[in-house]
């Protein structure tokens, strides 16, 4: 629901790196979007088109790499894919695990000219 402000931040990051690299245009934006992020692809595309208008990022292709929700067991170190948000370690049954991916939304790289 909050994609507008999020896309503003995203475009600001892209334009900053485009300028740092003296890009005349941004062809593609590679994004990483975690499985359980509240961000949805469609509204991001929608707002991107509006917000990027008139900038060097206008017309860039958006590529989303989706990452699964993964956790690491604090007790035994096992890394596992979290299913149905159950954080119990499948190896040692400990319930002390921390989430290591699946929530992120970041700009991985941009392809520029």
């Amino acid at each position, binding site marked *: *629901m*909050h994609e507008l*402000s*999020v896309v503003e*931040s*995203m475009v*600001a*990051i*892209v334009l900053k*790196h485009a300028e740092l*690299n003296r*890009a005349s245009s941004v062809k593609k934006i590679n994004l990483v979007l975690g499985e*359980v*992020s*509240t*961000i949805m692809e469609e509204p991001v595309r929608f707002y991107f088109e509006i917000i990027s208008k008139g900038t060097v990022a206008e017309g860039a292709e958006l590529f989303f790499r989706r990452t699964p929700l993964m956790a690491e067991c604090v007790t035994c170190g096992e890394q596992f894919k979290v299913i*149905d*948000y*159950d*954080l*119990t370690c499948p190896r040692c049954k400990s*319930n*002390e695990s921390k*989430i290591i991916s699946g*929530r*992120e*939304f*970041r*700009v*991985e*790289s*941009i*392809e*520029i*000219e």
Partner: protein
Amino acid sequence: MEVEVLEGIFDANEIIAAENRRILDEHGIFMMNIMSSPGAGKTSVILSTLEGISKEFSCAVIEGDIAGKVDSERIAKTGVPAIQINTGGSCHLEAKQINTALKKLLLDGLDVVIVENVGNLVCPAEFKLGEDLKVMILSVAEGHDKPHKYPLMFSESSVLLVNKIDMIPLTNFDMAQLKETVTRMNPKIKIFEISCRTKEGIAEWLDFIKDVINEKKKSENNPTESTG
């Protein structure tokens, strides 16, 4: 040419959240962020909490709403300073808005800031404000299946207040089922069953929150022990 960026889109918010936290730590102020869907009882919980702690601690409230100032007026009636933030359609509070609100408060001598987030079970979970504690409220009328639908909120919060337990007889709410699901998602979460109407369970919540506030005050007096 491909250029590596590796920047999180929430980084800007998190930098400001960390700055808020620094300001609060410097003054030994404890901040909690109260989140729930519309009408689950955020303002009622804040009023019950103020009733229980405002003699002991100096408190202020930051109210986040899409529009209006109904809730900040409810708070101001108690004599506790309340700042209203209108998000103008946005579905959550961001660290920048809290930063502005903190600048309007007299921080010296203040012990506690309570933030009422915008009524929404999804988006507020994603935005750090610089708080010490994230508290979510689920009212029994919403049903015990909500953790499956809104997992991020349940896994991000440190405390779950199950509110309106006076209404359980009118519903098919299954408390044991709720606790089992939530604990599997978030083994460290603290769950309190409360009613802001009958005040059942409020005393346990107040005991807990007073302890946490006192911890923070202690760390102000001994800054080297601060855990952040």
